[in-house]
């Protein structure tokens, strides 16, 4: 039975349309993984040999970081790993035991390539300190690594799965991570000592290994229970929509006619879909960027870098949702094309939405003037550049996106419907202004450089009607292809 199930999964993967289409991305991902492996390997070996030279007791120095290590593994898995799933409904009608199916789904993560990454770091690390450890210890370390990694794996899967239903779990997870970092950085709890104690105990008496084994079994059992109780129900596909009717009573925008209607529609879309709502909640994080960099004297005089920060503070939000434009309306794109409105109004609505949100971010960033008038000037020109140039570029390139985007599924770190091109596009948006600034700065006129950036932004703002007309033309010529792509779920 297991083999049959496995065969079906394999056939499903081989025949997936995505596989044929995105071979380029697959190759790129494979290459990236290869590089990461090499880096981990090299890094581990370097660390190990360094420790062997400098530390009196390298093993203790390593196990001190055990908790941090597994913490980072968890975050990495949370961000990168997909939930193991299987289209289970067709099998439920067959005489197959439910528990068998659940167990099958749950063994899938054992074959994830991410499982190799921790070993890719630890193996060379141990090689580096080979003169300080016994072969018995190596065995115990590997056993511990295996068990703890699997525990983290199943725990992550459990959290990820349950947050589909209960969105708050995601924020609890975020808060827990944050409090871990805070507790540690203010030395309230000494996690390194705890870690050294815990893993030291296992090393001195391998029977302690049973503790993580019990944890692993517990995590597996949690997953098993969750799946077996919710298998037939569809309730893990759909989340309970709360915030029903948010923004329903907003009437302010209606005075702007059809443009206002479309803006309101888009705002409702952001608030009422999980994936976009997460985006909205991330927005304040962009504002906090300043807190990191302005307080650090190293960056104080690096004008070019501060422009980068300024672009992020005033434009990070529009850049993150600018990636989604047009495609995030996949679900009702046919309506957009047949509704009684002009395409130029439709495109304008998006433009004003971006301008509006950049303006709000700019207003919120004004208190940073506390760190110097220079900061205010930089943020102002960054704002102008974002509004005048970046918004239009984002809109223009968004017309190239023709992948269906599903807003109901997934939240953070979900890049379904976003193509690699987008990330390439971010590059000129962020780096362009710095390149403009650099020659002026090197010649000794940094302020002139800033003014040029601001001036470019102003030009974009002054000619926005003309430029938007260009974008609208592009949209019109691309509309059939976009619509066709958006219909392919």
């Amino acid at each position, binding site marked *: 039975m297991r083999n049959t199930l496995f065969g079906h999964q394999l056939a499903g993967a081989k025949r997936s349309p995505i596989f044929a289409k995105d071979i380029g991305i697959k190759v790129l991902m494979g290459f990236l993984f290869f590089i990461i492996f090499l880096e981990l390997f090299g890094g581990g070996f370097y660390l190990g040999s360094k420790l062997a030279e400098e530390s009196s007791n390298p093993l203790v120095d390593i196990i001190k970081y055990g908790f941090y290590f597994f913490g980072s593994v968890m975050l990495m898995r949370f961000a990168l790993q997909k939930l193991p799933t299987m289209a289970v409904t067709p099998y439920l009608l067959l005489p197959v035991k439910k528990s068998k199916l659940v167990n099958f789904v749950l063994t899938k993560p054992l074959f994830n390539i991410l499982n190799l990454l921790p070993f890719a770091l630890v193996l060379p690390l141990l090689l580096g300190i080979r003169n300080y450890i016994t072969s018995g210890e190596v065995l115990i370390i590997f056993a511990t690594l295996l068990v703890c990694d699997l525990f983290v794996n199943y725990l992550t899967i459990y959290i990820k799965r349950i947050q589909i239903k209960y969105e708050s779990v995601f924020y609890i997870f975020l808060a827990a991570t944050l409090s871990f970092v805070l507790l540690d950085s203010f030395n309230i709890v000494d996690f390194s000592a705890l870690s050294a104690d815990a893993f030291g105990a296992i090393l001195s008496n391998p029977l302690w290994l049973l503790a993580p084994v019990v944890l692993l079994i517990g995590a597996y059992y949690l997953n098993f229970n969750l799946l077996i109780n919710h298998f037939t129900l569809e309730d893990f596909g759909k989340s309970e929509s709360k915030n029903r009717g948010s923004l*329903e009573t907003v009437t302010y925008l209606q005075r702007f006619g059809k443009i206002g209607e479309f803006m309101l529609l888009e705002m409702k879309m952001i608030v009422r879909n999980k994936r976009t709502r997460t985006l909205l909640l991330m927005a304040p994080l962009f504002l906090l960027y300043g807190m990191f960099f302005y307080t650090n004297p190293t960056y104080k005089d690096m004008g070019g870098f501060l422009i980068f920060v300024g672009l992020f503070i005033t434009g990070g939000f529009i850049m993150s949702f600018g990636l989604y434009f047009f495609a995030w309306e996949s*679900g009702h794109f*046919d309506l957009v094309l*047949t*509704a*009684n409105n002009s395409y130029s109004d439709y495109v304008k609505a998006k433009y004003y939405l971006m301008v509006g949100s950049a303006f709000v971010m700019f207003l919120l960033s004004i208190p940073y003037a506390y760190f110097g008038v220079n900061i205010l000037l930089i943020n102002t020109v960054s704002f102008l550049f974002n509004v005048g140039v970046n918004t239009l570029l984002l809109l223009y390139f968004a017309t190239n996106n023709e992948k269906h985007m599903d*807003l109901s599924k997934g939240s953070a770190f979900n890049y379904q419907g976003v193509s690699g091109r987008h990330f390439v596009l971010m590059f000129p948006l962020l780096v362009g202004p710095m390149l403009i600034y650099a020659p002026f700065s090197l010649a000794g006129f940094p302020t002139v450089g800033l003014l040029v950036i601001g001036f470019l932004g102003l030009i974009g703002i002054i000619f926005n009607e003309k430029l938007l007309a260009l974008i609208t033309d592009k949209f019109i010529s691309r509309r*059939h292809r976009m619509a066709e792509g958006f219909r392919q779920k």
Partner: protein
Amino acid sequence: MIKINNLGKAYNGTVVLDIESLNIKQGESFGLVGNNGAGKTTLFRLILDLIKADRGNVESKNENVTNNSDWKNYTGSFLDEGFLIDFLKPEEYFDFIAKINSITTAEKVIMLDRFEEFFGGEIIGKNKYIRDFSKGNQKKIGIFGAILSNPEILILDEPFANLDPSSQFRLKTILKELNSDRNVTMLISSHDLNHVTEVCERIVVLEKGKLVNDIATSTETLRELEGYFAS
């Protein structure tokens, strides 16, 4: 009203639509029947300029629909869930459609009254997003949205599918009234020969993208069609 000239569309070399000429007069109720894959939806999408024709064109009031979007002023349509905004409540969706088409609140209320029976108390005031409604109720919402804009041309793809028998019956009455009272030109596709012969004066049969039969509805029509599809 709608004129189709030498229209052709193929996907990956397979011809899905190939119509030399077809005219739909103002006020006509036009029924489109055919098996799966006959090209019904493709034809509607081409009329609504949702896909690009490989050759030929569609004219609405003598204007090519691809180059001129005046047709949006007087055309109401509902083909599939791509016409619904799933994160809105039905009321908000209707508001949006009304605003976009400059329909006043008073007109909207009158329309809602007329549809009360059709909705069967399942649509309005439910405090649910459209995505949380059943397929049948979503269809009702979409059909109402198409009619709400007070169109001169109404295009509906499979409007009777997924509806319960009472709703099917009510919808037929509504459509017949629209056609006779307001002289709305209607384009309706259906698998169900009974419904379509009841509502439409003219029936066109598509087969593998080609127009194979074009008949004015009479008492004989249903039997003729049944004979055609049974063979």
